[in-house]
């Protein structure tokens, strides 16, 4: 019984039992189904339960059996598990074949698909849309299984970088918790039945012109989807299209409205900016500004300390510590409603008036730097001195008026067209989403809504609490939810339709700069999900259209050139992964006299701010183990969210990390654990979104607290006057870097002495470029009794630039995907057994109230005198002829001595059986080039030896040496800042050799004479002398 082999133990017997009961109990039995499957060919081969549900009696089998057995379910084997098991196994009956190519012709990035060579990957360019914004990616596919996401080097929004989210999407694709059947009030239904229901409903709507018809989507940039919706709205003029998602850009749009009277998108050009002031603009974090990857690349291009490239300077004013704040030369923690923008604007002669009271220019109030006597004027001076080469960037969470002022400031500084440009909005239909959702709810309340189609998103979970969307939802007549998971929203809708994963379907989307990417499927829908296009089609004239026909049809209609050229152009688009120069058109806009809205009278006292979680974002990836276990860059927290509190406030309220507090804001309450965050603005606390899910899957449910419980529509990003009271007993947070080094004085002291990270100011660097090497004494190479080994052919090495690393975690996920690194779960993380091969160490320096943070990615140093090798009793870790510190898994007996003797503690041990050997769908995810480690063996960074080997084979076939940059480690490839460079040290012209010859190069703990092959480039700050003086 194949499906049972794939079952997870515990469920196994149950499943077997059920199947057998089904066999005995029903007219139709599973044997018959399997028979049906085995006979089936082509598309039906991939159908899952609902397809079979057409069989009379199947439903009966499924459903009659459950109640009777309900009592017998074992721990951890819920009804959903069974459905999942049955669904997955039936689906996988075919998956095993490993030829899950979609039916339509898709175009490979490098190699022709008909030339599939087993063991050789194919690469396809596509995009991963997040909040509608396309993140350009190239997906590595092995025998038809997408196993790794990489960046698209040719796409301006990526330049080869891939962020943590899109890389983790492959895990999301194979997630066994994804919903797998169309269901009506919880019972399995065929697609045709839903179509019929929709047709009937539309027929009723015909008369009223669709007055009762509503569509609720997330942010839409897809031209195809937009046109589909438009078509339906044309047919039903009175129907309405609403958009909502919690992490929206309403303030940006309103800000643009105030400044320009129209909605435009703002694009920054950080490579052109000498002086940057960021007001909560987190342009390095994947959860920050769209275009973060490009911004990181542009910013760090000015920090490589290359001759001729002047170093830029970054000021950050922010509430919660962020990646951008960590890179700042000067950082000012302030409550979110800072007035520095007003001050600078006023100083630059910008005037404004309040919409409320006609009173003129309050600018005058800001002529004195009332709040920050030193900081504000210094920044102002600096900006002034760099007119045209300065930039004021504002984060999405800042009030609209700050955006407006920033536009005015940038214009006053002559930055427009230089460091900042304005373009047509990327969104197909930019609306104020909070308002849009409010309207919808009002209509539902008024009973105006008979048909509500929720396309993606999870509003029942993440809508503002005061709107009460979840409660009202039942009032809408027919409710249909299209979603990847059977989540909070689908629970409240009558119909649930499993949504296809972006890697499973055809679609299109725009990148942050408007560039269009055609999204092509890497694999046919695993759990037979429907794409938004197919779903919308059900409301159109041709309900059976496939995504492929829809998307391709749309673009054919848009195609300007000769029809016969379309095919070639289309292929090129797919091949490149984007439509050449399809970026948004620049708009020439000038700032109107500013009419600022009435200031929100929030009252005073402690302020609460909401931020999307750096890992699980707004909760959409709550079930993604990789992201859950990904240490949040600054707090190193995993598997939970916490209430970030500044050390100052913590002291006042006598709070410590782990204490549980009750937070009351505007009459709404929640309870969550405190985490003391150095550098947090004193009088405010930060809540992270995306946790406290009730139906978030086996990984996502019941973790942390639900910040949306206190998030109201009038104060979506920050609210004043919040009450904090300590309650209950402490909560265990799982953090990968023990708080010692983040908050403990001894540790900070030791860190400074040991200088793992080395840093100087620009002035110091110019005075003495080799400062880093002089901080510690490295023993000379010839100081040895032993004859040194020679590495004749290749001599692999790595260089990591601390000045470039922005701490975005991309490398961690890249490594995890490339090397089949298991997820260990919260409890094991708490026991300090997390498995990431790269540790992203974050070191704080200076005052806890506002420390400087330096990130240091620590992979294996591949020491030439490896201490770990010396002590291994069985020679399970030895040196290769190319100087790699090889780890021989199947020779390892697990003494763990190597780890004890590793000064860098980069080795990871399988204390238990961490790898998932059971879940069938996850087996497809594994990289076939890398061993899946079992219990009791040590593992560690290998410099992606499988990639080196592949390159060696290719080069030997062509009888040449491996070219520089022909081998890129997974971490290097993903890095948006090009901080990691890997290559052959024997080749003196290789990038890495040149970097290691450079002045900033130093070896971590090299004083121990370990001779690390991985070395670091010291960081250099560029502080404003003015502020340095005043300290």
């Amino acid at each position, binding site marked *: 019984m194949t499906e049972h082999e794939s079952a997870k133990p515990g469920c196994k017997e149950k499943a077997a039992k059920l199947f057998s009961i089904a066999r005995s109990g029903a007219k139709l039995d599973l044997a018959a189904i399997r028979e049906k499957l085995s006979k089936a060919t082509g598309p039906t081969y991939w159908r899952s339960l609902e397809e079979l549900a057409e069989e009379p009696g199947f439903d009966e089998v499924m459903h009659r059996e459950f109640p009777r057995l309900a009592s017998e379910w074992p721990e951890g084997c819920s009804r959903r598990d069974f459905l999942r098991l049955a669904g997955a196994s039936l689906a996988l009956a075919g998956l095993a074949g490993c030829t899950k190519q979609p039916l339509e012709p898709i175009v490979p990035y490098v190699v022709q698909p008909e030339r599939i060579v087993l063991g050789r990957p194919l690469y396809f360019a596509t995009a991963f849309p997040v909040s509608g914004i396309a993140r350009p990616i190239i997906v590595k596919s092995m025998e038809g299984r997408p196993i790794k996401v990489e960046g698209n080097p040719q796409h301006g929004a990526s330049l080869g970088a891939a962020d943590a989210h899109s890389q983790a999407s492959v895990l999301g694709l194979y997630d066994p918790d994804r919903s797998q059947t169309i269901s009506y009030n919880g019972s399995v239904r065929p697609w045709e039945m839903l179509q019929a229901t929709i047709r009937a409903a539309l027929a009723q709507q015909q008369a009223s012109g669709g007055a009762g018809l509503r569509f609720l989507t997330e942010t839409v940039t897809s031209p195809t989807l937009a046109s589909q919706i438009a078509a339906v709205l044309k047919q039903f003029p009175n129907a309405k299209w609403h958009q909502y998602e919690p992490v929206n850009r309403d303030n940006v749009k309103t800000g643009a409205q105030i400044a320009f009277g129209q909605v435009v998108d703002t694009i920054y050009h950080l490579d052109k900016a000498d002086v940057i002031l960021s007001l909560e603009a987190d342009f390095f974090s994947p959860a920050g500004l769209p275009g973060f990857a490009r911004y990181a690349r542009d910013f760090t291009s000015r920090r490589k300390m290359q001759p001729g490239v002047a170093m830029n300077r970054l000021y950050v004013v922010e509430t919660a510590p962020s990646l951008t704040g960590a890179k700042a030369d000067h950082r000012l923690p302030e409550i979110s409603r800072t007035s520095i923008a007003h001050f600078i604007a006023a100083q630059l002669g910008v005037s404004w008036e309040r919409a409320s009271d006609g009173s003129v220019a309050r600018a005058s109030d800001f002529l004195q730097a009332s709040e920050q006597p030193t900081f504000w004027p210094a920044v102002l001076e600096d900006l002034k001195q760099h007119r045209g080469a300065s930039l004021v960037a504002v984060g999405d969470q800042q009030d609209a008026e700050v955006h407006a002022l920033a536009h005015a400031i940038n214009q006053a500084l002559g930055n427009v067209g230089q460091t900042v440009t304005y373009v047509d909005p990327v969104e197909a239909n930019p609306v104020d989403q909070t308002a849009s959702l409010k309207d919808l709810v009002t209509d539902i309340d008024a009973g105006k809504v008979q048909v509500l189609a929720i396309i993606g998103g999870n509003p029942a979970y993440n809508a503002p609490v005061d709107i009460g969307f979840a409660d009202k939802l039942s009032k809408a007549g027919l409710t249909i939810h299209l979603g990847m998971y059977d989540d909070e929203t689908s629970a409240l809708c009558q119909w649930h339709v499993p949504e296809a994963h972006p890697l499973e379907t055809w679609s299109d989307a725009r990148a942050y700069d408007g560039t269009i990417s055609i999204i092509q499927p890497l694999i046919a829908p695993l759990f037979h999900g429907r794409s938004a296009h197919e779903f919308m089609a059900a409301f159109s004239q041709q309900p059976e259209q496939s995504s492929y026909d829809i998307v391709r049809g749309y673009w054919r209609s848009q195609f300007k050139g000769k029809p016969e050229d379309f095919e070639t152009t289309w292929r090129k688009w797919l091949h490149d992964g984007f439509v050449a120069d399809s970026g948004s058109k620049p708009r020439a806009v000038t700032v109107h006299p500013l009419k600022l809205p009435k200031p929100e009278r929030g009252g005073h006292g402690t302020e609460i701010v909401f931020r999307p979680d750096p890992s699980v974002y707004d909760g959409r990836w709550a079930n993604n183990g990789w992201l859950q276990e990904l240490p949040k860059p600054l707090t190193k927290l995993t598997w939970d969210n916490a209430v970030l509190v500044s050390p100052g406030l913590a002291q006042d309220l006598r709070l410590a990390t782990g204490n549980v507090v009750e937070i009351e804001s505007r009459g709404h309450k929640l309870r969550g654990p405190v985490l003391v965050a150095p550098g947090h603005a004193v009088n405010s606390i930060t809540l992270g979104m995306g946790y406290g899910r009730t139906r978030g899957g086996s990984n996502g449910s019941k973790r942390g607290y639900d910040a949306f419980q206190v998030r109201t529509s009038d104060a979506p990003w920050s609210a004043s006057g919040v009450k904090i009271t300590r309650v209950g007993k402490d909560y265990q947070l799982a953090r990968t870097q023990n708080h010692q080094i983040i908050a403990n004085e001894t540790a900070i002291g030791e860190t400074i002495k040991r200088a793992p990270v080395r840093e100087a100011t620009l002035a110091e660097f110019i005075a003495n470029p080799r400062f880093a090497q002089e901080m510690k004494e490295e023993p000379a190479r010839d100081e040895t009794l*032993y*004859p*040194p*080994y020679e590495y004749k052919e290749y001599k692999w090495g790595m260089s990591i630039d601390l000045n470039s690393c922005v701490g975005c975690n991309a490398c961690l996920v890249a490594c995890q995907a490339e090397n089949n690194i298991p997820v260990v779960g919260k409890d094991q993380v708490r026991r300090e057994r997390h498995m990431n091969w790269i540790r992203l160490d974050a070191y704080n320096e200076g005052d806890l109230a506002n420390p400087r943070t330096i990130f240091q990615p620590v992979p294996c140093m591949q*020491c*030439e*005198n*490896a*201490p*770990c*090798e*010396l002590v*291994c009793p069985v*020679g399970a870790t*030895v*040196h*290769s*002829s190319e100087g790699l510190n090889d780890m021989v898994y199947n020779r390892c007996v697990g003494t763990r001595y190597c780890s004890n003797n590793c000064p860098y503690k980069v080795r990871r041990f399988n204390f238990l059986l961490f790898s998932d050997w059971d879940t069938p769908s996850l087996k497809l995810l594994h990289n076939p080039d890398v061993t899946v480690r079992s219990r009791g063996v040590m593992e560690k960074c290998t410099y992606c030896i499988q990639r080196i080997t592949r390159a060696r084979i290719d080069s030997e076939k062509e009888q040449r040496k491996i070219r520089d940059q022909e081998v890129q480690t997974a971490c290097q490839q993903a890095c948006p800042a090009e901080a990691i460079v890997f290559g052959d040290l024997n080749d003196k012209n290789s990038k890495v050799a040149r970097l290691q010859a450079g002045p900033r190069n130093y070896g971590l703990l090299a004083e121990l004479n370990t*001779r690390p092959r991985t070395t670091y480039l010291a960081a250099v700050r560029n502080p404003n002398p003015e502020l340095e003086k005043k300290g």
Partner: protein
Amino acid sequence: MKRAPVFGLLAEFDSPTDLLLAARKAYAEGYRRLDAYSPFPIEEVSEAIGHHHSRVPLVVLVGGLLGGIGGFLMQYWISAVNYPINVGGRPLNSWPAFIVVTFEMTILGAALFAVFGMLALNRLPMPYHPVFNVERFAFASKDRFFLCILAADPRFDRTLTEQFLQSLGPKQVSEVPH
């Protein structure tokens, strides 16, 4: 050579001194194939019956040398000849690191040779031995001391030897049957 009807004659004494004197007399009398039994080692007695040097030390030396040299060669062969590989940048023949095992092997070899050599030289284990046929011999492992003249001795004569033994003033003399 025809086998003597008896194994020998056994004289019993109750102090180590008596045994020693008796043994000396017997040896002086010209008896060579004789043995003494005592519940604890008595240096002088074995001397007295002409057992002067033990060959055990030689055996032990051989064992030690075998163990030591073998031990080092094994490590050298394994690390430098049979499976040479770069371990932590150390030379293939890291002889200082090999000393410990060499030492342990020396001890092990010596100890094994010492014990089994001793047993071999003593012809042990020996499941059967005639002296046990004598009832009283059980006291040889408690508080009695015995002198035994073997029938195999050329000067052995059933009656004369018995008279001789009686003359040594033993508690009693008994015949040791095969």
